[in-house]
């Protein structure tokens, strides 16, 4: 019997290959054609940007991880800290927030007219904070990555067996011995993966650097690519910048692949471990202060977004047809991107499992491995590289800006594939391993199998992946910044324009709308993922 599954997988791979390959070929051709001009572009300006890209990523990583260690330890040591569950939920928020929304939240606290400035003037201090430049970039990156690192570390520490804590209190270990002998080994095992992940996220950070970088002194490769294409239309420079970014990403990823990935076992809101040690008052106060400072650092910008968003004239904003068009455009493009990423990921997952269970004990062939790798292709070739590649290629044939909807849907869809793949694959593989023999014996095939067996299993992970992909696409600024124009404006694009023309009130209102939209989707995805995890445990049937 011929199955359509491998064909679907091949088509999905072909789409990804065209998307990424087309961009790369376009860049290569362009680089070779104007080779003299292109290589001349590798000047000191370029190296300075590359250096700054690495420097800010390194500092962001060190700060995030360095601060996360005491915070995670404090949270772990006090499972009954008031509101601990709530704090951990809050720590999941920054990841769900579009970067642009977070940037506005951060300026509302640390900016020229922010809370901190107000506090200084109330205290009679003559200090006006200026966050534009490296400070702002680091603040925003730590805002995003400190909670992430804390959650990852905490879940690692939760995996320490309870017996260790019993033993340590029985042996009367001091604070330092406990750290050195029990906590540090676990932290050490996972820290390289976490640090690597954060480094990678910061190297490809676009929105934060664009909005908080403030000028050529503090610019990263991604932002420089955007500026050379969008403002200067300097193709040679864009090509050399893009190639440099590609080399950098591949280099960092190959170093990272040596250190392994961080693991987060489920959603670690529950307090798994009981601690048996008696803490002194001093330790408790110190830990409490650490948690509160961490909490404020994350909570204040979020609160700032809400407060300044509500202070904006929301009614007037919602009366603007431009705003409504942006909201609708965002939703239509976001939903299309989500649908695309869901279809591609499903095809990859289903085809991979089909080949894997067909080959039995033999080792996987090239096609099966490509299906696996294809899902994370976008990790290697950053969206901005794909975007600029196609931008440069398409200008020979059409007006690149007219491609905005297609490029946003394709690139945003591709961006979500690694996540959708990881959401769908475990459910599908488990279900298949449970059901394949049964279905073979009972003769359940084709449409009957899809209707009775596979779809009921896939329904929930599919909607989780869809909601997640749509939230990701709604909040993305990278591709739309490159291709956006007056006829195609998404919510983040409109927000950026209002920020650029110093209509801060409008920007705050739009940020609130965008933030709420993304958050609702993320909450839906999170809920679904939660029940998914529970169902996995319950179903041993």
């Amino acid at each position: 019997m011929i199955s359509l599954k491998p064909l679907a997988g091949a088509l999905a791979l072909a789409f990804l290959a065209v998307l990424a390959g087309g961009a790369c070929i376009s860049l290569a051709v362009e680089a070779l054609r104007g080779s003299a001009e292109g290589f001349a572009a590798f000047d000191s300006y370029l190296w300075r940007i590359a250096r700054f890209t690495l420097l800010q990523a390194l500092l962001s990583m060190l700060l995030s991880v360095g601060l996360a260690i005491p915070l995670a330890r404090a949270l772990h040591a006090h499972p009954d800290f008031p509101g601990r569950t709530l704090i951990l939920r809050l720590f999941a928020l920054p990841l769900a927030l579009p970067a642009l929304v977070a940037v506005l939240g951060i300026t509302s606290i640390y900016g020229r007219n922010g809370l901190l400035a107000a506090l200084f003037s109330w205290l009679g201090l003559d200090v006006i904070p200026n966050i534009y430049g490296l400070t702002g970039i680091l603040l925003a990156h730590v805002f995003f990555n400190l909670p992430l690192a804390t959650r990852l570390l905490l879940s690692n520490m939760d995996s320490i067996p309870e017996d260790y804590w019993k033993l340590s209190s029985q042996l009367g270990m001091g604070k330092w011995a406990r750290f050195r002998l029990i906590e540090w080994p676990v932290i050490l095992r996972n820290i390289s993966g976490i640090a690597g992940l954060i480094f990678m996220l910061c190297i490809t950070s676009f929105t934060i650097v664009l909005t908080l970088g403030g000028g050529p002194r503090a610019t990263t490769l991604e932002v420089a690519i955007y500026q050379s294409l969008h403002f200067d239309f300097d193709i040679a420079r864009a090509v050399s910048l893009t190639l440099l970014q590609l080399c950098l990403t591949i280099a960092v990823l190959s170093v990272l692949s040596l250190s392994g990935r961080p693991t987060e076992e489920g959603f670690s809101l529950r307090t798994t471990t009981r601690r048996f040690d008696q803490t002194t008052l001093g330790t408790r106060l110190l830990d409490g202060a650490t948690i509160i400072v961490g909490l404020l650092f994350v909570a204040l910008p979020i609160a700032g977004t809400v407060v300044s968003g509500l202070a904006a004239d929301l009614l007037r904003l919602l009366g603007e047809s431009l705003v409504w068009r942006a909201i609708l455009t965002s939703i239509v493009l976001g939903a299309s991107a989500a649908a695309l990423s869901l279809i591609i990921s499903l095809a990859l997952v289903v085809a991979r499992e089909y080949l894997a269970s067909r080959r039995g004990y033999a080792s996987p062939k090239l096609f099966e491995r490509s299906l696996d790798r294809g899902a994370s292709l976008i990790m290697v070739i950053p969206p901005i590289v794909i975007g600029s590649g196609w931008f440069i290629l398409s200008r020979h044939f059409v007006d690149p800006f007219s491609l905005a909807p297609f490029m946003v849907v394709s690139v945003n869809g591709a961006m979500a594939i690694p996540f959708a793949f990881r959401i769908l694959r475990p459910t599908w593989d488990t279900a298949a391993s449970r059901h394949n023999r049964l279905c073979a014996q009972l003769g359940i095939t084709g449409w009957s199998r899809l209707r009775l067996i596979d779809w009921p299993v896939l329904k929930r992970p599919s909607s989780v992946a869809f909601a997640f992909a749509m939230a990701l696409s709604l909040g993305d600024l990278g591709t739309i910044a490159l291709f956006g124009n007056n006829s195609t404006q998404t919510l983040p694009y409109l927000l950026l324009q209002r920020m650029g023309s110093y209509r801060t009130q409008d920007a705050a209102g739009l940020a609130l709308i965008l933030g709420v939209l993304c958050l609702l989707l993320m909450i839906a995805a999170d809920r679904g993922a939660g029940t998914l995890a529970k169902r996995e445990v319950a179903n041993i049937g």
Partner: protein
Amino acid sequence: MAERSRTEAPTTDGAAIRLDAVDFDYDDMAMHFDLIIEPSTITAIIGPSGAGKSTLLNLIAGFETAKSGRIVIAGADVTHAAPSERPVSMVFQDNNLFAHLDVTANVGLGRKPNLRLDETDRVAVAEAIAKVGLSGKEHRKPEALSGGERQRVAIARALVRNRPVLLLDEAFASLGPALRHAMLDLVGDLQEETGMTVVMVTHHPGDALRLQSLLVFLDNGKVVASGPAADLLSTKAPTLLRKYLGAEDSAL
């Protein structure tokens, strides 16, 4: 491929199973089976882990395909037949049920793989559920059933499928002793009623005695000894089997 009618009387005659010089490579291990199982008998397959017990059942059920040799069930060569075309039902240790379907639907799949059941199908399903003692639990999902009840559902499905061979692959291994004995007795009663051929893999030689069955002892991918369980489990047992049984005793 022999034609089997699905509307035949609930009492099926058992079918003979014959493995003629069947070769199969499991990873690096070469297995070789020569075995005849008489119709309407109960056969227990025992042997150390990795001896090929489950592989033997998988070959009969069609989840593995022999490298060479022939597998004949009820006189028909099924060596290359698909699992659903073989006159065989198999119950696994777990994952016998679809977790999102209730008891009736799980049993009903044995009648119609697309679940479009007609009135006779429904009657047959209800009867089978009653026979395994699950009346009143027709609409429960597997998560609301105990381990023993889940296996009863799987057996009910085997009953409505009406195939002359029932394979049990450590089907009761995860149940406690009392429950396991109850399930064995249920299988024994159903076998007596339907006359089907039962082949079961077990880790408990006592299971074979309880059902007064034949015993096949496997080691290293080959049949080492076979015969009535009562004989083989006595002092007349061959050395290898005695060693296996002894090791089992000392492990208890």
